[in-house]
């Protein structure tokens, strides 16, 4: 067990994966100098320029070429720099990577990880702050992961690289420096949620950085004699329905919270599933928190208007008792 940052935990996952599998390589803009957030620092020196590959500012080619290389026996880790820029490679991801195995009748696989740092971070404004995870969940063929802790960023990235499906890997930019214990031997099964806190009174389902806020909120709720259970989904496709349904059966109350726009967000899928399958267990109104369907501004006070905060989660949890 060592204490590591969220960023370094991922870096270590890549280093270990590259050491054990010579077909793993990373490609993206500026990787040779460690990447924009330093997530590849030192890897060029260890693995050379062919395996820690710089790329032209050609997102479609980074995605498309990595896909071609994935079909021909390598396991690329694609760095998109900011999740927002991955939109320049939408055809490659949605029409090509996600569909090839099926369209070609199982003749091919695309074992690749597409890293897309997302989320609100330091006045980055409308084109560098989005959380679009729900888009990708809508695309059959893709696995969608949203780690929230250093341990998960280590264990999930390692599992993602080993996975034969294309994985959209959404790290949150605001928690690169978040520190936590990391056990290199801890393996996780992709698709299993993590119960970050057990509780009997209300279930809070979240993922990515908002899951960390949910844990904070649960501490505050404990002071108010509300025993909250926090489920960090970690993986949106596949998602751990039984963890959520079992918890709601137990607590009878549900809050869903995510940073992305509430309308059409993945929270809606969770609430709909709960409504279909365990509605009779509910003892109070369900609350769903997400961003307003608006744009992320530069000015800090305006940026804050788009945030789901720990306080909002506390209030929402209290409202499930009304």
């Amino acid at each position, binding site marked *: 067990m060592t204490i590591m940052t969220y960023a370094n935990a991922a870096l270590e996952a890549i280093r270990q994966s590259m050491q054990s599998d010579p077909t793993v390589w990373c490609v993206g803009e500026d990787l040779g100098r460690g990447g924009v957030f330093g997530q590849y620092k030192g890897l060029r020196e260890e693995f050379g320029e062919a395996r820690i590959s710089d790329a032209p500012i050609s997102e479609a080619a980074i995605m*498309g*070429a990595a896909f*071609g*290389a994935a079909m021909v*026996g390598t396991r690329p880790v694609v760095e998109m720099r900011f999740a927002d820029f991955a939109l320049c490679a939408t055809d490659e991801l949605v029409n090509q990577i996600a569909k090839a195995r099926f369209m070609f009748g199982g003749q091919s696989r695309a074992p690749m990880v597409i890293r897309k740092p997302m989320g609100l971070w330091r006045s980055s404004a409308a084109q560098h702050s989005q959380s679009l995870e729900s888009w990708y969940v809508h695309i*059959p063929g893709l696995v969608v992961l949203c780690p929230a802790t250093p341990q998960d960023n280590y264990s999930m990235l390692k599992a993602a690289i080993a*996975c*034969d499906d294309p994985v959209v890997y959404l790290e949150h930019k605001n928690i690169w420096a978040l520190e936590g214990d990391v056990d290199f031997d801890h393996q996780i099964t992709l698709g299993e949620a993590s119960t970050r806190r057990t509780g009997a009174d209300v279930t809070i389902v979240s993922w990515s950085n908002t899951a960390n806020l949910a844990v904070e909120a649960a501490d505050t709720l404990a002071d108010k004699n509300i025993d909250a259970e926090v489920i960090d989904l970690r993986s949106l496709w*596949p*998602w751990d329905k039984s963890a959520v349904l079992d918890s709601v059966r137990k607590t009878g109350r549900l809050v869903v919270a995510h940073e992305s726009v509430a309308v059409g967000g993945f929270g809606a899928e969770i609430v709909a599933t709960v409504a279909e399958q365990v509605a009779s267990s509910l003892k109070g109104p369900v609350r769903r928190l997400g961003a307003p369907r608006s744009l992320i501004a530069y000015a800090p006070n305006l940026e804050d208007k788009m945030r789901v905060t720990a306080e909002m989660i506390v209030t929402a949890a209290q409202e499930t008792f009304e």
Partner: protein
Amino acid sequence: MTIENFNTDRGLALLTVMERIRAFEEQACLAAERDKLVLGAIHPSIGQEGVAAGVMSNLNKDDIILSTHRGHGHTLAKGASSVAMMRELLGREGGCCGGKGGSMHIADFEVGMLGANGVVSANITIAAGAAHAIKLLGDDRIVVDIFGDGAINRGPFLEGLNWSTVFDLPILFVCEDNQYSATTKTSSMTGGDGPAARATALGLRATEVDGNDAEAVADVAAEICARLRAGGKPEFLHAVTYRQTGHTSFDPAAYRPEGEAAKHRLENDPIARQRDILLTAGISEQALTDIRGEAQAEMIEALRLAAASPFPDDDTVFLDVQDLGSPAVEAY
């Protein structure tokens, strides 16, 4: 071409491949229009067979190709089974893609054919990546990516060609220029001096060839492939040909100038030209007739077998989507 050093075996092989492509597509068009057995769109390459035959004659089985929506010819020339291909066009069990892809997604990884593509231009970056993997793995195979003249107006052309020069990849890009982008004359929508000029600007060595002369295509492709195999830089081949049919088998192509297609059929058909070359080289009329007869018999039989094949099992609909979160486990 001097008859003295003419390679008769290669000449006959080129004709055979072209006749097989032509016969395959004629049967496919009949299956679409007459029999209503091909349900989706098919894009025939009738009139363009010289490019497929000439380029593929220089590839080994483990070399890789990627193609377009108009890819039957390339796939057949790379060695795919005509029966499996016809089954795919009819959406049947035993099709190359199990009936899930159809004409526009035809692929046969066993023979290094990594897929046609329903999205114009998309395979250019993917092909560059296939070549990238070959280089990373230290293999000695090469990649050929074929696309149409319309594809050079999409971004992947710039990004993919640039990628190939930046990483110095073993790839040949072939622009199979049939002069049309669906119903539009491509020249009317293309700035600058055309495909080869664009490729040259991106650092590729570019060659132009008469795509209706299978011998000429085979000759230049042989030189290019030899350079690539010797560790050379990525190259570009602009092969000018003509689409004798409509854009799809159902398109009457009434937008073309009166007489244009007829003139090409009469004067510039790659199969007729190859037959003339072979006759001049002393091959008998009968031998050529036999080649055509065999090709037609093969494809009539392929259609018969395909039509007699069942549709895929319903259960296969949820197969091969993904391992994690497969719809076979959780469809909704």
